[in-house]
């Protein structure tokens, strides 16, 4: 659906994206992750034919975004960052206009606009002026706009930014449902969201692609250096010395919380030392109130990958 080869974009002397290549297959939901300024929006703006790349090629549904721009655009539903909308139009009026301009014909306009209003729960604001809507509703109007011509591919640039947790959940559900029939490329900071919705993740940092894999594989990769968290009252013992003696423990960090201490153990790859830790605590008569293996999340992956050179 999307094919990007050796794409580079320079703003003046500054290289925003640097020779990136990736593909998104039909039916995939791909999360496009990266810290601020990584080049996510730049990539998406090139894909949407909004601006040309400095070098490299990109195509959508087989159409080059520069040479066959009009065809490529017709296959794409694009939601730009910050959701620009004509604030003085009414919701239905705006969606009618957008449907028409994207080539939906005659009677189909009503039908499609009705469908997307339903899908994005816009029924109760359909006659309101867009400028008076809350952020959450505007976001949904933007999404409805991206969907209105029933495109094969959706490119959504930070669709949940600035929403409250409830709204985020709604949008996430919506995207999940859309994923059943559409190919989606979605950029976001919100990692649990990606873990829940995306079949694959592309992590980009400073204009380069650092990783591209399923969320599970990425997390597994980082879990190779796992950890254990122990919260205990060690009495007279310092705790750190004893824990460090367990084979497989690489290092121990401690934090005091009154009588209680919180130990964070980094362990060797693929080992689970919870039993050993429990046995030790029993022998030394420590009072334990928490013992857990810390699970790596996509967040750890993200931090590790994008933080290495910060």
């Amino acid at each position, binding site marked *: 659906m999307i094919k990007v080869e050796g794409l580079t974009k320079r703003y003046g002397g500054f290289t925003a994206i640097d020779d990136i290549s990736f593909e998104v297959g039909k039916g995939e939901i791909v999360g496009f992750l990266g810290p601020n300024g990584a080049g996510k929006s730049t990539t998406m703006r090139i894909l*949407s034919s909004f*601006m040309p790349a400095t070098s490299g090629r990109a195509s959508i549904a087989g159409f080059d975004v520069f040479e066959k721009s009009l065809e490529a655009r017709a296959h794409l539903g694009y939601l730009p960052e910050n959701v620009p909308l004509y604030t003085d139009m009414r919701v239905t009026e705006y969606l009618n206009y957008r449907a028409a301009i994207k080539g939906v014909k005659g009677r189909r306009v009503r039908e499609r606009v009705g469908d997307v209003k339903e899908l994005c729960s816009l029924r109760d604001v359909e006659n309101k002026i867009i400028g008076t809507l809350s952020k959450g509703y505007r976001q949904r109007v933007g999404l409805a*706009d991206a969907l209105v011509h029933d495109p094969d591919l959706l490119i959504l640039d930070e669709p949940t930014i600035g929403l409250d947790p409830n709204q985020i959940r709604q949008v996430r559900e919506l995207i999940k449902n859309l994923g059943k029939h559409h190919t989606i490329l979605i950029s976001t900071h919100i990692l649990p969201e990606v873990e829940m919705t995306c079949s694959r993740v592309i992590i980009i940092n400073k204009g380069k692609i650092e990783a591209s894999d399923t969320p599970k594989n990425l997390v597994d990769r980082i879990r190779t250096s796992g950890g254990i968290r122990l919260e205990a009252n060690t009495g007279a013992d310092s705790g750190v010395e004893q824990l460090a003696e367990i084979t497989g423990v690489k290092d121990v960090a401690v934090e005091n919380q009154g009588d209680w201490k919180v130990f964070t153990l980094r362990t060797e790859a693929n080992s689970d030392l919870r039993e050993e830790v429990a046995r030790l605590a029993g022998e030394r008569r420590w009072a334990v109130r928490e013992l857990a293996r810390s699970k790596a999340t996509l967040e750890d992956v993200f931090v590790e990958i994008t933080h290495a050179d910060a």
Partner: protein
Amino acid sequence: MRTFAILFLREVKAFFYTPIAYVVLFYFLILTGFNFYSEVMILNRGPVEITVVEAFFDTVIFWFSYVLIFPLITMRLFSDEFRMGTFETLTTAPVRDWQVVLSKFFGALFFYVVLWLPSLLYFVVFQWVARSDAARSPGSYWGAYALLLLMGCFYISIGCLASVLTKDQINAAVISFTSITLWFFAGLLTFIFGVTAPVFKDIISYISAVEHMSDFSKGILDSRPLVWYTSMTILMLILTCHVFQYRKWKA
């Protein structure tokens, strides 16, 4: 064509979303109405050489209000799209850049024409009440209104260019107002300084809106202004299109 029509329709509607459209309409109605009234009053005092139509288009009020409307109707055309960021949604829809530029130009032109419609009524009423012709011949009307349309095209295209240069409507208005006014006064140079060198006079008469109008409102149709305004409008629109593209790519 379909795409153009959809864009054009939105542009026309967009005029009436803003209070400025109504302000301009009202203001223009009052000014031209007053202009017409005072012209008729002056002509009423005694027999004069000129007709109502000629006089109407030859007053300070007329030209002043005329020059002022262009910044007002063109300033938001592109600036607003840049300011709101909607030029991103606009240009990532399957539309061509020239379609966008032309739809904005013709949208503004449409509004401009609407602005002038009531003034036709003045002349109709005059004929009806005074039972005398407001003009020497029908050609006079045609001439005056054809020229208004031509000049409108040109000044609107200047406004388009000004608006595509900046995302601040006020800047756009200042740029277009300044250019149009300068342009306008350039046409009055011979008059102001009493220059009589034939070459200079020729050049000026090519660009002088006031001279054009005094000819056209007598019913004298000259092809030079026609060519001049048409080609300048096209030039301005081509420039607008290029700047639009450039700004998009710079984003």
